[in-house]
C-alpha cells in the first residue's frame, strides 16, 4: 500500500517522533532508552497472517498493560502503548521512586498509584507522537481522555484487538529502558480517511522535494 518513497518518509517521521517520545521517557525515569529502528507498515487487518512474526505486535500470550489515546476529527484514530504487566510494574516503581515514594520490591500487583503513573507516562509518550502528526498535517487533533486497561491476550486473539480498524499503521517500534527488561510497543490505528490525508501530505512533500 505504501510505495518505497512513502515508506521511507513515514519511517523517518516516525523515527523522529518516537525518538522525541523516548527522550521524554528518559527524562521521566532518568534512564537511557534504547530504541529499536522503527519499522512502519500500513496494513489491512484482513491481510494479516497471525503466524507472521512481523505482525505479532502483542508480545506473547499473557497479561498486558495497555494504554490508548483516541484522537479525531480530521485525523482520526487510536494510539496504543503496551507493556507486559510485570514490566509495567517496574516502570511504575521507577517513576514513583523518582518522586521519593516508597515502593515494595518484587510486588507484582499494579495498585491504583501505579496505574495513575502509567496512565500519565503513556499520555506523555502518545501525545508526543500523535501531536507531531497533527503538527505535520497542520491540523488540530482533539483527544479523548486516555484509557488504560489490563488485558489478557492469548495467541489466538492477538489480532482481534484491532479488528474495528480496517487499516492500521503499525509502528513496529519497541524501546528498552537501560538496566531493566522493560520493553514497550507502540501501535497506531488510523481510519482510511486519515491514512489518505497522511499520504496526500507526504506526497506533496515528496513532490516538492523531487520537483
Amino acid at each position, binding site marked *: 500500500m505504501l510505495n518505497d518513497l512513502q515508506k521511507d518518509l513515514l519511517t523517518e517521521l516516525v523515527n523522529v517522533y518516537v525518538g522525541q517520545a523516548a527522550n*521524554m521517557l528518559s*527524562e*521521566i525515569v532518568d534512564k537511557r532508552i534504547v530504541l529499536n529502528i522503527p519499522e512502519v507498515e500500513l496494513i489491512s487487518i484482513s491481510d494479516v497472517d497471525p503466524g507472521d512474526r512481523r505482525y505479532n505486535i502483542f508480545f506473547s500470550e499473557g497479561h498486558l498493560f495497555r494504554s490508548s489515546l483516541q484522537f479525531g476529527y480530521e485525523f482520526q484514530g487510536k494510539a496504543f502503548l503496551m507493556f507486559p504487566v510485570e514490566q509495567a510494574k517496574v516502570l511504575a516503581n521507577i*517513576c*514513583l521512586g523518582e*518522586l*521519593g*515514594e516508597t515502593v515494595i520490591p518484587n510486588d507484582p500487583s499494579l495498585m491504583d*498509584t501505579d496505574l*495513575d*503513573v502509567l*496512565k*500519565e507516562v503513556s*499520555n*506523555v509518550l502518545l*501525545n*508526543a507522537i500523535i*501531536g*507531531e502528526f*497533527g*503538527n505535520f498535517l497542520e*491540523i*488540530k*487533533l482533539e*483527544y479523548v*481522555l*486516555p484509557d488504560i486497561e489490563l488485558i489478557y491476550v492469548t495467541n489466538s486473539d492477538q489480532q482481534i484487538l484491532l479488528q474495528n480498524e480496517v487499516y492500521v499503521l503499525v509502528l513496529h517500534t519497541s524501546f528498552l529502558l537501560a538496566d531493566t527488561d522493560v520493553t514497550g510497543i507502540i501501535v497506531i490505528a488510523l481510519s482510511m480517511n486519515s491514512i489518505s490525508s497522511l499520504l496526500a501530505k507526504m506526497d506533496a512533500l515528496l513532490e516538492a522535494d523531487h520537483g
Partner: protein
Amino acid sequence: MKVLIVEDSIFVQKLLRKLIVDHIPECEIQIASNGEQGYNLFQEFRPDFITTDLLMPGLNGQEMLRMIRETDSTVKIIILSADIQKTTRDEVENLGISGFLNKPLTAEKANTLIQLIQAAYHAE
C-alpha cells in the same frame, strides 16, 4: 502566596506540590482534579497563580481558562500539558497565559515554573 494546581494525575499533583513546597515553603496550595473543580476553587480560594493541565475529565483546562479569563485577567496561569500541538499552544496563548510547559516536568522546566511563581510572588 496562593497557588492552585489543576491536574488529574495524582502522580503529577504530588510532584508539583513537592516542588513548590520545597522551593517556596510559605506557599498555600490547593489542588483540583479537573477544570470544574479548578474553576470552583479559583472562585473560593482566589489564587495568585494557577498551574493547569489541559486534557482532564469533565471540564478541560482550556475551557476552565476561558471561564476564568471572563472575570479575571490578572491571575497568572501556566499550562503544563502533554499536548505538543502548535495549534493548541496558539489557542491557549490567545486566552492569556504566562507560560506553556510541555510534560514531562524536567528539572529545567521545574526550575522555570518555580521562577515564574517566585516572580509572581515578588510582584505582589
